[in-house]
């Protein structure tokens, strides 16, 4: 089998898996003007997967809000302002999942708490685990994808603008997606 073979959590070697930030991404997508999908991403974030000897695992992540990138600098400034993320007051988004379940086919379900603007709500995200793969220097790597949908208004992200003929400029539901390359820390 190739290095992309999907394994269950039982086959993931115990250890602490750190993020390779260059080969990972964290982004969001939200309906804009009712019809289109607008996407943005965060450049600076971290994630750690910890797998115990008994196969149980936890996943933590932190995103630096001021690293948000969109295609327009004025929009970026607006998204960082108190009307949106308020990056000055709330510089970090956090995710802490104490429940990490990997099925036999590699599908992944994590449950934990997402904190944005100091507002914490339980969250479940689904995705896949790929690997482990032994790479250069005998480094063990995992690929993790996760996706979930949140109601942004629950986190104090309330900005909107009514459209002249009904509806709003921005949807409440936001899809969050992370694609992580994780490397096991050498003991």
């Amino acid at each position: 089998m190739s290095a992309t073979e999907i394994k269950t959590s039982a086959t993931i070697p115990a250890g602490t898996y750190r993020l390779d930030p260059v080969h990972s991404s964290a982004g969001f997508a939200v309906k804009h003007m009712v019809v289109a999908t607008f996407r943005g991403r965060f450049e600076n974030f971290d994630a750690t997967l910890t797998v115990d000897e008994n196969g149980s695992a936890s996943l933590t992540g932190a995103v630096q809000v001021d690293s948000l990138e969109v295609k327009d600098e004025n929009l970026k400034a607006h998204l960082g302002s108190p009307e949106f993320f308020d990056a000055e007051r709330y510089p970090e988004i956090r995710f802490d999942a104490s429940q990490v379940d990997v099925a036999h086919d590699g599908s992944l379900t994590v449950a934990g708490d997402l904190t944005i603007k100091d507002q914490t709500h339980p969250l479940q995200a689904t995705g896949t685990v790929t690997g482990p793969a032994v790479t250069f220097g005998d480094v063990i790597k995992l690929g993790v994808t996760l996706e979930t949908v949140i109601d942004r208004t629950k986190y104090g992200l309330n900005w909107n603008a009514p459209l002249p003929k009904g509806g709003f400029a921005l949807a409440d539901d936001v899809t969050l997606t992370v694609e992580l390359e994780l490397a096991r820390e050498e003991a």
Partner: protein
Amino acid sequence: MRLLAVSGSLRRDSHNSRLLRAAAQQLPPGVELEIYDGLKQIPPFDEDDESAPAPEVLEWRDAIESADAVLFATPEYNSSIPGQLKNAVDWASRPKAQAALRNKPVAVIGASISMFGALWSQAELRKVLSASGARVLDTELAVATAHEAFDDEDQLIEAELGDALGSVVQDLADAVQRRSQTVGA
């Protein structure tokens, strides 16, 4: 701590300017208030002039940047903000990422000779300031029948209103304090 006070009215005997002078008499310890007097000189906003704004625009932006917070007092014309005040806010809101108003704690109060005390104008100004990137306090103070509201010392005659004005100033000072704890300024 230094507060900049901006009256949206250009009129010599403006009730909103009086309201700001009343606020100046209710400052918490350690807080100074400077009343901005250059509003009338700010030229109309024009994107063509953004690369080299007039000195009056730079002075306006400097006044905001060097203040810890801004207290706006607005009159109301046609249920909205005076044009010159909106114009000044527009200049202070661009470019977005470096805007003088960005993250700046601001509060809005207002006075008018009507029964409503510039309520709609205050709401509109709060909306505009939010869009400008300012940290807008969720407070308001509507001084109705403003021509009868002040004594000869520019104090609000109605004690309740005077207390409410003091609360707004205190809220603004608290917001500055909170911000300095957040950003370590």
